[in-house]
Each structure stands twice: as C-alpha cells, then as structure tokens.
C-alpha cells in the first residue's frame, strides 16, 4: 500500500511539474498524447508486472513487441486483412510466451537467461521477416480494400482519426490499458489464479506443498506477458504509422520492468498490485514530456529514468527493512 501511495505521489508531482514546464502543457492535445503514451507503456508493464509477481522476469518484451509490429505489418502487406492479422499476431505473442514459459518451468532454466536469448532471437526473426520498414500507408497503398478496417483499428487502439489528418482524438491507448487493468486487476486480486501467482512468486516450495500446480501458474504469467507485449507492438505500429525491424521496441523491456518496479512489484516476487503498475507506467511518459517541454534534449531521458528507478529501489529496500524513511536517512547519513 505504501508503495502505491509512493508511486501516486511521484506521478502527481511529476504531473504538476509538467504543467509548470510549458504554457501549453495543460492543453487537451497534450493530455491526449500523454494518455496514449501511458496506455502504451501500461500495457507492457501490466504483463511483466504479473510475471514479476509470479516470480519470473522477461527481457524479451522489446523484441517480442518489435516482432509483433513487424509481423502485423508484413501479414497485411502480404494480403491478410487487418483484423485476422491482428489476431494472428496476438496469438504469435501467446505462443512465444508459452514457449519461453515451458523452457523456464519444465526444463527449469532461469527466466533471465531464457528471455535474454529470446531478446536476440525475436529481434532476429523480425529482421528476417523484412529488411524494409513496415507501414500503415504502405499497406493502404498495396491493399486499398484494407483501408476501412485498418482505420477503425487505428481509431480504437491508438486514438488516431485518419479522417482528421491522423490527429489524436481520444486516449484510446489509455482506455485499452484501463480495460485491461480492470480485467487483470480482478484476476490478480480477486480470483484463485491471482492468489496462486502471489503464492508461487513468494515461495514456490510452499505453493507446491499446498497442492498448487506451480508450473502451470507461472506459465500462464509468461503467456500473458508476451501477449500483452505483442498487443503493445501493434498499438505502436497503429499509432506511429511505421516501424523499422532493426529497432522498433528496442529497450522497451527495460522501461516495462522499470515501470513495474516503480509501481511496487518486487523482483523477489510475490509483491505488487495493478494500481501500482498503472502508476509506475505513467512515470516514464511524464519524464519524457517534462524533458521535451523544458527543451532539455532527450539525451538525458535514460539517465533520469535510471536515477528515478534507483531512488525507488532504495526506498523499497528501506521499506523492506521495516523502517521506511528512517533507514533511508541512516543510509544517507552514513
């Protein structure tokens, strides 16, 4: 609870900071854009957050996201209509999660290593699919008959209205996130499945002795994580209009993990909640906005994200030792 409040306070102060950073920061268009960015990061964070709670980790998110964006584009370029292409890509994400999850749970390989390999493999696959950029305009050019369903996908998953010069008209990505957060929240906090995730993440052995199928529970978390990464990849292609196989989604796994940790998911497993994940995901877009408005130059963004995360980790450690700020101050004084 304290972690969620901490994340909430951080998000609120960053938001106020952003409002003060530029006269136009409070505009509707800026808030729409912020909402969409939050939605995009949040979808990834939600997946990896659940996985972290279940005692796993996924370093392949960025590559899976990139592969999904490219696969989605390539499928449509080759004549698969947008909605089936969308579903196939989502399924591909699930299959990737299933495969990595099986390697971790059945072969008892370390999640860190399996997904590190995945990071390379799926980036490679994306680049093998095509060497040229995939793009919405290109698909429309090749298959004019796809235009209508593609534009409604763009509207519902990225908030872009093609009829109004691709302007953001509503925070679709935020809506997607909130719907997913609602569903994941209920599953995580109200159902047996969620309870098992916490148990497995806290203490795998005790969960096993309580009759829980530890492997199946953790496997489900891997599937969820990769599926949501694939969804985020498609949202990225729909909103930005194009994607390069070489670099689309690069480093996103780290932003997603950072968001989950800032939102109170402990990498020790078994701790975290959905509200925290959503708040944690908001921190990065807010920092991005502040940096842009203040015209600092986006070169500093990684350092700021890293610094914020480090502070979060120190705070978390203080909480774990049971004295919160007191032990933090003692650390500093020493």
């Amino acid at each position, binding site marked *: 609870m304290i972690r969620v409040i901490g994340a909430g306070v951080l998000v609120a102060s960053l938001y106020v900071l952003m409002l003060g950073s530029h006269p136009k920061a409070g505009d509707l268009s800026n808030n729409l854009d912020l909402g969409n960015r939050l939605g995009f990061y949040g979808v990834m964070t939600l997946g990896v957050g659940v996985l972290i709670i279940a005692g796993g980790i996924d370093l392949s998110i960025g590559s899976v996201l990139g592969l999904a964006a490219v696969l989605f584009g390539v499928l449509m370029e080759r004549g698969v209509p947008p909605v089936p292409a969308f579903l196939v890509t989502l399924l591909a994400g699930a299959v990737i999660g299933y495969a990595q999850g099986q390697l971790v749970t059945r072969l008892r390989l370390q999640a860190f290593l399996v997904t590190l390999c995945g990071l390379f493999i799926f980036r490679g696959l994306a680049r093998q699919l095509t060497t040229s950029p995939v793009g919405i305009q290109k698909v429309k050019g090749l298959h004019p008959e796809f235009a209508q369903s593609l534009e409604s996908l763009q509207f519902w998953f990225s908030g872009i209205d093609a009829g109004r010069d691709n302007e953001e008209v509503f925070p679709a990505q935020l809506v997607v996130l909130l719907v997913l957060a609602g569903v994941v929240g*209920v599953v995580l906090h*109200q*159902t*047996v*499945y969620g*309870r*098992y995730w*916490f*148990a497995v993440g*806290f*203490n795998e*052995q*005790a*969960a*096993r*002795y*309580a*009759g*829980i*199928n530890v492997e199946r529970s953790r496997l489900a978390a891997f599937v969820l994580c990769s599926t949501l990464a694939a969804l985020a990849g498609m949202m990225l292609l729909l909103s930005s209009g194009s994607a390069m196989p070489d670099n689309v989604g690069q480093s996103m796994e780290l932003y997603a993990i950072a968001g989950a940790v800032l939102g109170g998911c402990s990498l020790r497993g*078994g701790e975290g909640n959905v509200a925290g994940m959503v708040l944690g995901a908001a921190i990065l877009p807010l920092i991005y906005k502040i940096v842009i408005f203040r015209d600092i130059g986006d070169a500093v963004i990684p350092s700021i994200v890293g610094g914020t995360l480090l502070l979060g980790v120190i705070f978390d450690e203080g909480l774990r030792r049971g004295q919160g700020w007191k032990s933090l101050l003692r650390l500093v004084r020493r």
Partner: protein
Amino acid sequence: MPALEARTVRKVFPGVVALDGVSVRIDPGEVVALVGENGAGKSTLMKILAGVYQPDGGEVLLDDRPVRFGGPRDAMAQGIALIHQELNLAENLSVVDNLFLGRERTRGGAVKWLDRGAMRDAGRELLRRVGLPESFLTATVSSLAPGQKQLVEIARALGQSARFLIMDEPTSSLTQLETDRLYLLIDDLRAKGVSIVYISHRLAEVKRVSDRAVILRDGKNAGELTKAEITHDNLVRMMVGRDLKQFFPRGHRTSAGEERLAVRGLRYAGGPDHAATFSMRAGEVVGMAGLVGAGRTELSEVVFGLRRGVSGEIAVNGQTVRIRTPADAIAAGVLLVPEDRRLNGLVTEATVGFNLSLPNLDSLSAMKLVSGTAESALHAKMIESLRIKTAGPGQVVGTLSGGNQQKVVFGKWLARGPKVLILDEPTRGVDVGAKAELYALIDELAGKGVAVWMISSDMEELLGVSDRVVVMHEGRIAGGLDRHELTEEAVMRLATGGVAA
C-alpha cells in the same frame, strides 16, 4: 580460567522487552543449560554473551571484570564462540578451508601465500579433538551430514582457542547416534576446562549434558535447577509457569477403526531397492522413527506426490489412488505438514490469512472468484479454534513464534477434513507450551478418526504420542513396535539395524 557472567541484563527491541534484568553465571568447565519457551529470551541472552548484541542495561562480566564487546569478533578474541542453530559454514569450501576461514595461515610475508601444509596439520589436530576422521579434512562441507557439519563448526571454534562455547539447539538436526557422540564430546571438553552454554528444547538432553539449568520465562529468570533437581516435570513447570500433568494427552483415543492408508510395495526413483509396505487405521497415531537419512521423509514425499513412485500402490479408505502430484494427494485426503515449515509449509512473507486460505481456495471461491466473507470466516475459525496467538489474519506469518507458525500449517489442512495427516517433525523448534497444544490437537484429530502418521526424531514425543511406532533403517522398514513394547532401547535397536527383541 575465567568465568562469564551476565548481570541484570536488559535488552529492548522495538515493541518488545526481550530481556528484563536477567542474570546468569557460567563457571570454568561448567555446562549450563539455558531453557525456556520460544520468546523467553534465550537467543537474545546468548547473542549478548557472544557480542552479537549489546545490552541496553546491566553488564557482561568476564572473570568478574565488566567487558563491552563491539561485535562477535571482540567476543571471539576473548575465547567466546557461538555455534549457530543454522550453521555458518561455507558449504562450497573444504573442511580445512572452513576451519581457517578468515584467519588463514600464510607465509611469504605481505605476499600472503596460503600455508596449506600448516593448516592441514593444525586442522588434523582439531578434527581429532572433535572425533572426526582425518580424511574429512579435504571433503567439501556440503557433502557432510548435519551432525558432522556441527562438529566441524565446533572444531573451528576450538581452533580459535574458545573457552566458552555457546550452542543454540545443537542437536535439533542430529540423529541419536550423532547426538550421543556430541554428548561425549561435551563431556570431554568440560573435563578440559571449556565452559558450555547449551540451549535446548529437548528436556531429556538437558538432564544428560548439563550441570545446572537456568530457566527463563518472558525475559526474566524463572529459576535454576541443579543437576539432581532436573526432572522433566520441574523443568516444564518452571518454563510454562504452570503444571503440565497431561503433556501427552490420550483422552480422545479410541480403538483403531478401518484401514485408512495402505502402502503396498512402494518404491521410488532414486530410492532404496527395498519396497515399503505398511498401513494405518482410522484413529491411530503411528510414529515413524529412524535416523536422519533412513528415508522417512522421502517415503512421505512419495505418498504426498512430491516424489515419483516407480512401483507399488497406495490405497486410501480401501480405494487405490493414483498420486502423482500434491494436488492428487490432497484430493484423496492425504495431507502433509512438512518438516521445514519456513521453506515448504508456509509462505512466510505473506499473512496468516493468505496461508490459511491457500490450499482451501477451491472451497472458498465460486467461479474462481475468491469470496472475502468465506475467507474471513475460515480465518476467524482457525485462529480461534487453534488458539493462534496473532494480531489477526493480516499479520505476516514469519513474525509469529515457531509454535504459532506450526499451528497455521495445521490450520491450512484442518479445514479440508484430513483422512490421513502426515506430520514430519511436527514440533521442531516449537516451545513447550505450544507443543502441549499440538499434542492435544493430534489426540483430538485421532479421536475424530484421522490416521496420523507422525515422523519424529524426538524420542519423548514418539513414545508419548504414538499408538505404535514403525522404525526405518537405511530406506527399509525395519520393524514395528506396539505401545506395550515401546521403549527407547527397542526403537534405537531397530533404527540402528538390530532386530526386535
């Protein structure tokens, strides 16, 4: 030879007064047992004597002069060594490396070459003193049995010329044989003028090893007994501050009923060649004795679905059941309270309520949605009926005392109405008061027709609680003893490979 003394020592932790003016004196060559329930302050006192904690009031005296230890290193320099309950050895290193860890013999001045020869020679002497063979010198510590590790730790303390050994429940993971060997070593050390502070939950061994017992209760001195006065009843009375006539109640026991569990010809992967066959009736408490490594825990793990059986069958209530996972066992009504409750029995970081709910979520949920009201009702019922001392279902389990943690483990299963309840060392690390409550609970469960399979290395408990005892030796069931033929000698004879008289 100096004496070590704590005088009116006080220690306060946030929210708890752990020690409130406790005094104890250990004279040269004396073995003093420190006895008390969990939470009585034994560990805190021991850590103050060993320099781990500094007292908030009172003082520690060495040879009647006040001393202040800045840390365990200071205490060690004065010859005071602490042998931890959880052993502090580097498992991946060899015995000789461990003996000299942190104070390696070197030569070559500042170059600090390891002087392996000198360490081996000195190490051999140390092993000889604790009765371990020289060949152990180069063995990796992780390959040793728990009792041997303990002896290595003692040898290390002796190598640092310890004059005071503080042992925290040294026999809790030892077999009878290893325990006997430790007793002999203690006698030997005492004869050589080494003083020993001995913390134990096992009352029989307090009588065996110590010259004097100091009893603590609620952070205060509760009394002292000379060797002649040490009796089970005297000790228990001082520890719990009340009379415990019915420590091992049998009031609910009825004559055994139908066959509840039958294990026929069971063998498992990685197990011995001998197949195990035994059975248990409703309302029966069957103790299972044996040395550590005799295969008792392994057998129970096969029956609970944690280990894969390769042949044989298991029947519950006369029906053959296929048990491949713990979920299968639980569905059949076979439930396990595991040996290591912090690792396997509980999610220690989670709350009392979380743990009580965990194996019962099927009955606490509808359409996989967990019902908060059903959960609260279960939590309240279990906390009430088992008298779990907790601030509430929201308290983190790891912060409870050992006895209360174990009650939570029992509570997890009671809601399921066990047919067969496997208890693996059910009272290890549990204080006397909670032990009595657990024994009463076992008696009550047996009265309700549960077949209780109690694996235990605690002889008093085996003799006191069981209706009969099955003894294992090297993976094989060596024999069974009915209540009327149940003696410590008979159990040990079977456990060490002899035949029943």
